[in-house]
């Protein structure tokens, strides 16, 4: 089987797709938070203090808002993007005990997804 061959494992395929979403979400949130705070959150002049719901404006726009959006994205992702998939049953105890490291492949036949 080459690396480009399509996998037959549904959980693997779906998990890989979800991993890409998650890394993109992390990159976007990181860029927003670090970028915004770098531009607006350093050396803030206390004489011209700008507050939003009681906190410095850079905290609201640079941390709280992306935090809320990240949480909203996580909820959406968990409810609608991640899929439910049946997990495999465990091999039975007797079989596991008789299994040695060199015979890992023996329980392939016992595990069906």
């Amino acid at each position, binding site marked *: 089987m080459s690396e480009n061959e399509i996998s037959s494992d549904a959980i*693997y395929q779906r998990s890989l797709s979800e991993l890409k979403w998650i890394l993109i979400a*992390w990159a976007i949130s990181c860029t927003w938070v670090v970028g915004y*705070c770098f531009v607006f959150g*350093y050396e803030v002049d206390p004489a011209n203090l700008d507050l939003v719901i009681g906190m410095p404006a850079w905290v609201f726009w*640079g941390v709280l808002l992306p935090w809320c959006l*990240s949480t909203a994205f996580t*909820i959406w992702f968990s409810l609608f993007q991640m899929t439910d998939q049946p997990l495999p*049953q465990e091999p039975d105890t007797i079989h596991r005990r008789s299994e040695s490291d060199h015979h890992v*492949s023996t329980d392939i036949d016992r595990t069906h997804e």
Partner: protein
Amino acid sequence: MNNASSGALIAFAIYTIAVFGIAVLSNRFAKGKEFAGEYFLGSRSFGVWAFALTFAATNASGGTFVGFPALIYTHGWTLALWIAGFMIMPLVSMAMIGKRLNQIARKTDAITIPEVLRHRFASPAVGLTATGFLVFFMFFYLAAQFKAGGKILSTLLSDDPFFRRCSTGLGHLIIDVPWVGQADPDYLLCLLVFSVAVIVYVVYGGFRAVVWTDVMQGIVMFAGVLIMLAMSLYQVGGLSNATRQLAKMTPPENGTAVLVIDRDAASDQLFNKAAWIKQDGQAYRLAAHGLIAAGSRRSEPIAILKITTPEEIERISTTDSLATVRLESITTQPYAYGAGKAGVYISNPGPDTKSEIGFLAIGTAFSFFVFWPFAATGQPSNMLRLMSFKDTRTLRYSVMTVAIYYSVIYFCLVIVFCCARVLMPGMEVDPDRTMPDLATHLATNAGTPWLSGLLVAAPFAAVMSSVDSLLLMMSSSVVRDIYHGHINPKATDNRIRRLSYLVTVVAGLFTVLAVLNPPTYLQDVIVFATAGLAACFLVPMVLALYWKGMTSGGVIAGMVAGTLMHVILTSWGYAAEGKFRAYEFLTLSPFIWDLGASAIAAVVVAKCQTPDEDLRRRFF
């Protein structure tokens, strides 16, 4: 402080009784089930609330309720940026590898992380290497957490009269005992009580008891934070008022002074740490206990804190016990960044006593945004939990639950302890007491002093929920991966049971002995172990789960390279700064370099090998 200490003692007693009750219930629940799977992984049967709260509580260690509040108090709003990586942490650390890891663990019936890797590559060498690194780092981590438990407890209980009597008695008992006699009796007493409580309930109840206590602890932490938020916002007059007050503040100055009285002391006069003296329009706080010996008028020089914000100085008055005392020979040292500068508490990079570039340079802020979510993903204790949920629906709803939980806990803590800065000046003399002192302050002002007991229960909950998980992981590594995996694969259930109990007790006692006299830099050991575990396991595990071309050689190379880079940068940091702290090359967190080294080594070595076709078919 007396109220806080007594409240803490009552809270700890109730807590201990509750966790013992849970351990008994867990033990009964486990009867009739296959031992190892139940004891180390709860038979992979946990639903949404149990799974979500054990994950959340395990990650919230003592640092969350002691170290983190102290940092917020000391540096201000910049901690919102410092902790911002938690916004995406549940998604990354749970959803990125959870489903796939649980699938492979079930396929191979693995109940430990080294076992997953061993079966994934059918390689005993991979399993043994992983076990070796795991035990190595876990020992440091466990030792640091036990020490944190003892320190937090002694900090919280230090003023309770009953505790003082017990501590004094223990001090007399151990004074002539070699090695043990050198330990601080307060710390030793707390360490012993804390350790015995944790070891007993972990041994008796196993993973299920750990998870159920985590659920209780998670609820206590959540409730505690919300109550503190409401009370602190009310008492400070709203968040806008707190932020405006913070904007006027300038950092205090640390220094030394001599306590002087008008006539020779008839007997030894002891002046408590944290007492205030106001003289010549300035306000000072004792940062250590002061003693004027009998027949003398002067103390030795002691540490003091000088307040520099005029609004704070106005509110401070001299403590009664120091009414006849004045300070002489005062010397103070301003902060390296932020001295005399208003606005540093509402802005980045935040004030700092030693760093001239402030507390949170932008490179450090970026590093923490990488570190929080990915270091959490690489923690074996978190990976282990991802192997314990019963179905993918549980995972989905738990990711959501933990995301909401962390959003509330961590952001609210920033607000609460920014308010604390306004409500209680001068906590820099003992920043670790910020949490219990604020709890007492809020509860007393609200006319409900009993509430402080509930509020200070949160730090116990946090430390216990971390230590129990680590202790169980340590014993599972030895019993399952070394003894059952390599020495005696045909061991009976009874034998595994007895050995598991024995190893848990021995690992606990051995760790306690190691931290009787903890080294000064033990807090840095926590960072060393956390980052080391993630540097060792994150990249190899992710590639093992998702890359068809990964090989056993690649896994070993990834673990070795990540660990080596971590050790090299730590040694470099020690050589350069004399501290047990990794060197920040190009001002980036060493964790980023560790991950880079691990990834390069894993991919290069894997590319030089041919993956096993049978294993590919089985897992992909």
